């Protein structure tokens, strides 16, 4: 039986595109001791990459700002929170629609939020105009059954 300790990490970094890879590495490193599958790591990396990219290009419109990333593990449950203090989202329901984008001219295709929702087990988003956006996702790693067996 595995005995995994609960864990918490909080990182604040600049909203610049170099930090997209940095955020993915932080998440991958954090979950590594929990023996995730390759698919689980890739899904978590994709989720964080989408959220951080959105903060950089939409929330701060490539002008920079701060992004806060919080990762928590509780037994086999991973929670990732990405917070920005940017411009916020006007219409959350529209934003979540597949292929809805406000930046088609920058070759965005309106998939990020849908990808996050699909790859996560639980997905929450809250936003306030002029104050920023919080994305929170939960993912349950595969070995839940093993733990309680």
């Amino acid at each position, binding site marked *: 039986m595995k005995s995994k300790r609960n864990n918490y990490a909080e990182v604040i970094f600049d909203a610049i595109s170099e930090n997209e890879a940095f955020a993915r590495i932080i998440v991958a490193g954090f979950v590594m001791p929990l023996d995730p599958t390759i*698919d689980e790591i890739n899904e978590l990396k994709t989720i964080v990459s*989408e959220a951080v990219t959105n903060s950089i290009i939409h929330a701060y419109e490539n002008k920079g700002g701060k992004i806060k990333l919080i990762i928590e593990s509780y037994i086999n449950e991973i929670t990732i929170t990405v917070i920005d203090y940017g411009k916020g989202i006007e219409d959350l329901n529209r934003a979540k629609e597949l292929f809805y984008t406000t930046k088609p001219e920058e*070759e965005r295709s309106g998939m990020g939020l849908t990808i996050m929702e699909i790859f996560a087990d639980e997905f929450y988003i809250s936003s306030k105009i002029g104050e920023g956006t919080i994305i929170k996702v939960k993912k349950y790693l595969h070995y839940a059954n093993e733990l309680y067996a």
Partner: protein
Amino acid sequence: MSLSVHLFIKADTLFVRLTGELDHHTSMHLRDRINSLMDKFEIKNIIFNFRNLSFMDSSGIGVILGRYHQVKQKKGILVVCELNSMIEKIIQLSGLYKILVITKDEEQASNYLGVA
């Protein structure tokens, strides 16, 4: 890990071999490299080889879609090959498989375009 881009032209087809991670940061560099070749040479078709691509998110879809629109104007074809399961999932979701040609490997892609 970053993205390394290997480009070469054969007949009227641009081959794009990618190694590493394709995200918003690296996609800007990739787009610039491809566009500067498209400006200089008569390129009709593009083959993307994802064999050594370990990560791709929606920014990758954006670059592929953008290049698709460019080759479509020249009545060309965009082919992607060597998709891993993760990249395949994202391409499925994007609906791109309806407008691009997907092949197993570069050889199949070249045969398809008649540039083998």
